[in-house]
């Protein structure tokens, strides 16, 4: 540590005013504050908030909350790989496959994203923000393990520049940056991120007889009879009971790296809520909205997908992951407390609507969150307006 400090100090004069690398001061500063706590403090005068939580700590809490999803996702990638090939694999082997498929995606996401951030910080002469720490981890978690790395890189560049920097950088973005990256791939290169791409098979690998890569969402959309019995009979012979309710709750099924396990997402949610970083109102209301819409469709719907019991909507696809990590993004969500309820409920409702009624988009949570991101300021506007109206009536002037 001391060695690092000395190295940083020894090159510092180059970056200060008048130094030959003055232009890159903010890149240097970012490195410095990332490694060490800054040696400037707030002045004694004035009002001060004395709290250990700053933007960096906030972001780290979210990353810690994602760790269960990440670890489980890594194992699951390997597990699905061996299941699809019909080979028995030990937990160690499964983890190993997961790590060699997942780690490059994470490295590319962070490398490219932070590269773009550094470039913009240098051009715009502002400090590098920590906002990308979370985005850089969210992007790999919403990608299938089989995604080509160049696509991850392009999507990351697109999301950081168009989703964030164009609007003014961290804290100014209208849309969730990680979902912008995913939406970009979804429309630009649909063949690598939709359909049966969720399980990493390996080049020329021979799958076990009877294998199908269909996800629960695809299965439910294609179902002609009873969705639940289709789920239960899926995987007979090579992965018995893979789409049982509790198996799907645990998340031992194909899907994006981090999204499959509702249980791990709930652990993450607990970390976010207890630490006060994420809003429980949004998380709860997304689940409520989806469940309510599911019940409503059960009552009025006519095709097999609408008749799927509502609780299944909560465990298939990426609803839990989206609700916990994407919808709660403090920048793009509604800010008012009532607004959070409306925002979350509408995300849940739209997710189920898109899933059930739109054959082009098997999963709805991504588009639902992006849509509500756009509407969040409007929701706040009306909530504040209603609040004003109520208080004006009470006022006695």
């Amino acid at each position, binding site marked *: 540590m001391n060695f690092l400090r000395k190295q940083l100090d020894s090159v510092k004069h180059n970056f200060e005013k008048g130094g030959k690398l003055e232009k890159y001061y903010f890149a240097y500063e970012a490195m410095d504050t990332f490694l060490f706590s800054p040696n400037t403090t707030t002045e004694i005068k004035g009002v001060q908030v004395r709290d250990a939580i700053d933007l960096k700590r906030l972001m780290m809490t979210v990353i810690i909350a994602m760790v269960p999803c990440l670890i489980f996702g890594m194992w699951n990638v390997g597990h699905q790989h061996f299941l699809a090939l019909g080979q028995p694999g030990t937990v160690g082997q499964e983890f190993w496959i997961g790590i060699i498929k997942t780690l490059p995606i994470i490295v590319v996401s962070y490398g490219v994203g932070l590269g773009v951030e550094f470039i913009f910080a240098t051009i715009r002469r502002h400090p590098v923000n920590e906002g990308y720490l979370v985005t850089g981890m969210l992007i790999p978690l919403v990608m299938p393990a089989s995604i080509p790395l160049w696509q991850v890189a392009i999507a990351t560049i697109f999301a950081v520049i*168009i989703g964030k920097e*164009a609007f003014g950088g961290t804290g100014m973005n209208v849309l969730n940056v990680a979902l912008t990256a995913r939406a*970009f791939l979804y*429309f*630009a*290169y*649909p063949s690598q991120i939709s359909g049966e791409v969720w399980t990493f098979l390996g080049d020329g690998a021979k799958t076990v007889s009877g294998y199908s890569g269909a996800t629960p969402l695809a299965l439910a959309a294609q179902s002609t009879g009873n969705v639940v019995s289709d789920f239960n009979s899926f995987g007979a012979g090579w992965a018995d009971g893979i789409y049982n309710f509790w198996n799907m709750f645990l998340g031992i099924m194909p899907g994006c790296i981090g999204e499959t396990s509702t249980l791990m997402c709930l652990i993450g949610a607990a970390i976010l809520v207890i630490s006060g970083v994420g809003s429980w109102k949004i998380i709860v209301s997304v689940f409520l909205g989806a469940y309510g819409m599911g019940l409503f469709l059960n009552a009025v719907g006519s095709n097999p997908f609408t008749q799927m019991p509502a609780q299944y909507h909560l465990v298939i696809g990426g609803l839990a992951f989206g609700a916990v990590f994407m919808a709660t993004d403090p920048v793009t969500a509604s800010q008012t407390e009532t607004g959070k309820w409306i925002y979350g409920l509408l995300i849940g409702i739209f997710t189920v609507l898109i899933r059930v009624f739109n054959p082009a988009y098997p999963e709805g949570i991504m588009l639902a969150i992006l849509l509500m991101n756009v509407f969040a300021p409007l929701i706040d506007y009306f909530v504040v307006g209603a609040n004003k109206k109520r208080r004006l009536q009470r006022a006695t002037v």
Partner: protein
Amino acid sequence: MSTEAAVAEEVKEKKSEPLLSKKNRKLISNPLDIDNPVTVQILGVCSALAVTTQMKPAFVMSLGLTIVTACSNVAISALRNTIPSRIRIIVQLAIVSLWVIMVDQILKAYVYDVSKQLSVFVGLIITNCIVMGRLEAYAMANKPWPSFLDGMGNGLGYGMILMILAFVRELFGAGSLFGFKVFATLGIPYQGNGLLLLPAGACILLGIIIWVQRSINGYRESH
């Protein structure tokens, strides 16, 4: 408004002005950059997003719009003193639609497949904001020759943006230019970017063009 300033200048114009005086050259060059109809005035965006998936229809569309704008500008400018101001819009529409129908007929006669691709958008030139805008803002108050140059300039400015959009969209979206498979011929494996072929992708691309243009020429909208 720069157009109003230009109008005021033109009123004081001397009789013996050379055909391509500095002022007249500005009429052509301004719409290409600081007064671009698409990226600065944000007009004609709908067709700019709709016809630019390939270069060929985009080229034909820009040509069509340039001709229509220039010719209608001349016609309206020649008639400007006799048009009653109450019914000027309908007179303008009648003249514009005359030119549009002529362009449409020529396209149908000589490049039928492109005409099919452009479908309604040729007809919609009639209501294109650029054409109407130039007639109202320029041709109604200026002589035929400057009006002609103004129409040409704005048509070219529109065409330039269309060609840039179509170039990027066709090259990176479909891997070809004017239908010629560039990447396949060069032997580079290339996977087309589906987003660029959607109108939404074109809208983002247009935004990037505006961003680049404004950071180069320092243009800021005045409030």
